[in-house]
């Protein structure tokens, strides 16, 4: 890694904790037990003191087992998750790829492109000028005026991907979104992702697909139980992660 390259996002000793209310199995015993009443909660320490710099025109891979805090760290990088302590600094605000949370299943694909585009910060005119391009990219011309709930999960994923990549942010965060749809769409989406990568200033990629991580990342960070285990050359970090994973 070239240390002279400008930093685009700096995560500085970030801690993210969730407070989760427990939902204990209710037995007769608990109902009548004289112990503490009231609701018990548990604090989940999802990210524990992570410090990480992301540089200009760099693709950083984020790996780790399920529940290691990858998605939480990714969300924290947008500044969308309140931190327990630490800071997230950035040149501009990073964006997560994906807009599925904005989509309405009762409405047609066309109306959802409008809603998704507006959620991403387009104006109505900007969405309308990109409408045909998005429909064609998603390959949904025939189904576009049908309600979203009639779509297969692959069709939904294609629509989400097509809307989300209509605008390329300076700093892009991708959480396992690359292998959606059928073969034809996968080829098109891989191409689009490359385009996004080369246009975006920096990219963070969360994936369990180690081949993809090694092929596309300049640097890899391995997250284990909320802490960074290793950061460095993709080959080395992936090998270390796989060795530790196999040993468990």
């Amino acid at each position, binding site marked *: 890694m070239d240390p002279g390259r400008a930093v685009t996002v700096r995560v500085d000793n970030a801690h993210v904790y969730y407070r989760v209310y427990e939902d204990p199995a209710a037995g007769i015993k608990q109902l009548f037990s004289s112990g503490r009443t009231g609701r018990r909660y548990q604090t989940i320490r999802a990210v524990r003191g992570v410090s990480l710099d992301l540089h200009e025109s760099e693709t950083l891979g984020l790996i780790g087992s399920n529940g290691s805090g990858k998605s939480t760290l990714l969300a924290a990088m947008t500044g969308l998750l*309140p931190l327990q302590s630490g800071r997230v600094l950035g040149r501009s605000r990073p964006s997560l790829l994906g*807009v599925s949370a904005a989509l309405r299943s009762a409405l047609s694909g066309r*109306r959802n492109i409008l*809603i998704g585009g*507006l959620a*991403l910060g387009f104006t109505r005119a900007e969405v309308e000028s990109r409408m045909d391009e998005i429909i064609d990219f998603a390959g949904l011309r025939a189904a576009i005026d049908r*309600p979203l709930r009639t779509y297969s999960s692959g069709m939904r994923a294609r629509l989400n991907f097509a809307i989300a990549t209509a605008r390329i942010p300076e700093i892009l965060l991708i959480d396992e979104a690359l292998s959606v749809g059928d073969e034809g769409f996968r080829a098109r989406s891989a191409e689009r992702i490359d385009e996004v990568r080369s246009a975006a200033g920096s990219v963070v990629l969360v994936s369990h697909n180690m081949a993809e991580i090694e092929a596309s990342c300049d640097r890899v960070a391995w997250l284990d139980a909320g802490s960074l285990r290793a950061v460095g050359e993709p080959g080395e970090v992936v090998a270390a992660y796989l060795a530790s994973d196999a040993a468990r």
Partner: protein
Amino acid sequence: MSDPDQQLVDLTQPSPPGVYLAEVWRRRDFALLVPVQDLRAQNMGSALGQLWHLLNPALMVAVYFLIFGVIIDTSRGVDNFLGFLIVGVVWFHLTQRVVQDAAVCIPRNLGLIRSVQFPRILLPAATVNGQTAAFAPALVLALAAVIATGERPSLRWLALIGVLAAQFVFNFGAALLVARIGAAVPDMRQLLPHIFRLLFYASGVIFSVDAFVTSESWRRAFALNPLYDVITCARWCLLGEPVDSWVVAGMLAWGAVLLVVGFVVFWRSDQRLGA
């Protein structure tokens, strides 16, 4: 080489109010168009479809008229009780629907909040816009009904635009405050219907406060209730019912104070709303 870190800004801090408002303005289409789409989606599965936006307020007024106009007569001191009742019920429910919907606008959009960055104030703004747009058929219905009960449109009716604007400001301020509280305390949603039931009787929706409350100081106290103020002003516009300056001042003051307080409270917590 100059320090490359100089350009970095703290992403967990809220942007200054001016920058925040500029971003809200740039993204105004979201708050204007998404609620309209949602209104469409609401009745899409039903047999009568979009007609329900008109049928709902009509049925509501019919039920109130049956109870308070026919069964229990509370029409004392009012010439045109049906018009009086319609204006009260319709205007009260506009605010009620805005505020109750605002209480859940953050929890309902948690997925969106956690995955897409935008000024969160767009969510309560979309709620206010959506419920106000849904109010349009009820407004038309109320105007038609008032004419049907014998009122004639006059220049006074133009003042209704001002009343609606003042109520919009008030609703928006209340929505911001309630959205913030509802995000922190989801129990708010359970409490609000009871608060509104209380307000319903304290706002003279179904009876004339002037006719039922004899004490002058108690009548003054009603002017502290913003909903009473709005309804009374709307009745003055459409029915020529009496209004005094306290009531108008109350309506304007509540709107201004709630808008400013609501904005500041909401803006300060904007970044923490995803938790």
